[in-house]
């Protein structure tokens, strides 16, 4: 039992006011964070674009900012990121959606109780561990199938990113499917539909907006994923769609430059922020689209 201390009314009132103000200040920290991100990214980016034209940056096909002569075409990094996104989506979207349908529509309660936490463990494993797994387990397997594969390659990293984003797709999609009212399912079953037909024609279409939103979020996560690609995808910016070659993503470039000694204020330092700004804009747009899809097309029951 806490001892009750009687304080004067004025003092209590004053304390309440102070607490309220303090909490209000905390509420604004998130806004400062956003402003901070935008300000810190765009300041150096602005300085970067005083040296390099935006057109060269966005359309150039060569990225050699630290060599002579420096070339600042970001397309190879974008292509590298795109390759990782494609490969990872091929894994995460069907497998994530499949698991979600199984857990929501097919799995007996007992099985669900075991499988769901296991998928959650998969989501909690740090990306560095997936990177290590890609490098030491996935790459050797790819190499036995395609001997010409480089040690660092997009396929291995893409598969690892895909595995990492499976739980994201499955848990969001499953939540959406669980929210589909049973009356809809039972109506279909009463007409003699099989589970497959109920899943395909009733549950998935009803939950579709959130399912699509989960796909977009998985893509956004793949765009921003860093350690896996830094470890397994290589560091050679290249405009290629061959998944067996070594490539570099936007995030991979940021890590590579950060590990080295690039002097503050140099053009190399500023490329970091230019690439970072592009990365921020891409993921921000994807997140907005995903939220829009979810809100716009969500059906209420």
């Amino acid at each position, binding site marked *: 039992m806490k001892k009750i201390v009687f304080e004067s009314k004025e003092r209590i009132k004053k304390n309440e006011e102070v607490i309220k103000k303090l909490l209000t200040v905390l509420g604004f920290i998130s806004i400062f964070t956003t402003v901070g991100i935008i300000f810190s990214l765009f300041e150096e980016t602005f300085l970067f674009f005083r040296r390099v034209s935006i057109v060269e940056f966005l359309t150039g096909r060569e990225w050699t900012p630290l060599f002579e002569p420096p070339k600042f075409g970001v397309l190879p990094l974008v292509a590298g990121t795109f390759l990782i996104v494609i490969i990872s989506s091929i894994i995460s979207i069907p497998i994530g959606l499949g698991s979600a349908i199984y857990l929501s529509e097919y799995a007996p309660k007992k099985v669900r109780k075991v499988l769901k936490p296991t*998928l959650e463990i998969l989501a909690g494993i740090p990306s560095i*561990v997936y990177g*290590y797994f890609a490098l030491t387990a996935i790459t050797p397997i790819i190499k036995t199938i395609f001997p010409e594969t480089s040690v660092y390659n997009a396929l291995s990293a893409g598969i690892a990113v895909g595995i990492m984003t499976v739980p994201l797709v499955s848990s969001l999609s499953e939540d959406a499917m669980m929210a589909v009212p049973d009356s809809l399912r039972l109506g279909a079953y009463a007409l003699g539909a099989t589970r497959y037909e109920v899943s395909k024609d009733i549950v998935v279409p009803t939950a579709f907006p959130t399912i699509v939103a989960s796909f977009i979020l998985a893509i956004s996560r793949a765009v921003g994923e860093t350690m896996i690609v830094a470890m397994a995808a290589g560091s050679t910016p290249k405009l290629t769609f061959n998944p067996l070659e070594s490539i570099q993503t936007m995030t991979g470039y940021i890590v590579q430059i950060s590990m080295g000694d690039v002097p503050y204020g140099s053009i190399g330092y500023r490329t970091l922020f230019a690439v970072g700004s592009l990365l921020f804009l891409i993921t921000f747009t994807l997140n907005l689209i995903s939220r829009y899809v979810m809100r716009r097309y969500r059906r209420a029951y």
Partner: protein
Amino acid sequence: MKEQDITKRRKIKNKIFHALIFLCTLFGIFILSVLLFSILSKGLKWLSIDFITNFPSRFPKKAGIYPALLGSLWLIILTALISFPVGIGTALYLEEYAKDTKLTEFIKLNIANLAGVPAIIYGMLGLAVFVRMLGLGRSILSGALTMSLLILPTIIISSQEALRSVPESLKQASYALGTTKWQTITGVTLPYALPGILTGTILGISRALGEAAPLIVVGALAYVSFVPKTPFDQFTVLPIQIFNWSSMPKKEFQNVAAAGIIVLLFILLGINSIAILLRNKYQIRMKD
């Protein structure tokens, strides 16, 4: 006859689909076991007391994880000290104090957006603001501040959910006894919401422990031969040390990296178990 065929076909389709999606679900479990097996089989032999207490070395046999382990501990403790009060405070503000205005709506939207910003972008924020602008340098404090901002959305959102789950009747009962708002919050609302808040905060802390990318940008070192003593010292953390070992040309270092991963996963497991224990303890108490 024909109708029976169709029914049969529909049933077969259902069975095939059932098998397919069951395999999809097993895929995750299969990968998890392969991953754990491959790491344990490579790293377990290298795990020893020396590995925990040694400094990194050029020789795989002598390499140890001590500075990275201490760096991670420093970082986690500082991050927790910063992010817990700020995160729970923000959640309290949004759920208990803020009026339903456009501004509040904007803050909520903003937090949801921040949750989707890639970790490495937070690293750039940390580099520009904490390392350069505030002049904190490439220190543990810069790293912890960066990590705090990174995990704040997670902590705020889960704390908000926990606060929302507190029954209004309990709060009203407290007010009826003549308590002030803050007394009701500390005496009724927070204790009731604590299990949920804890789950979210631990989730955030686990994330900070495993994250390497933002700290690399902030400037944590890849090779550290000293032990950090104050928050203003330079540092490295477990994930960066593991990254460093994985990229060494000598094959044996990959096994050392696996040993490092075992230590990292072990700590994560420990933290999560504590969270579950705490949650259960408080949940039982609330039921009484």
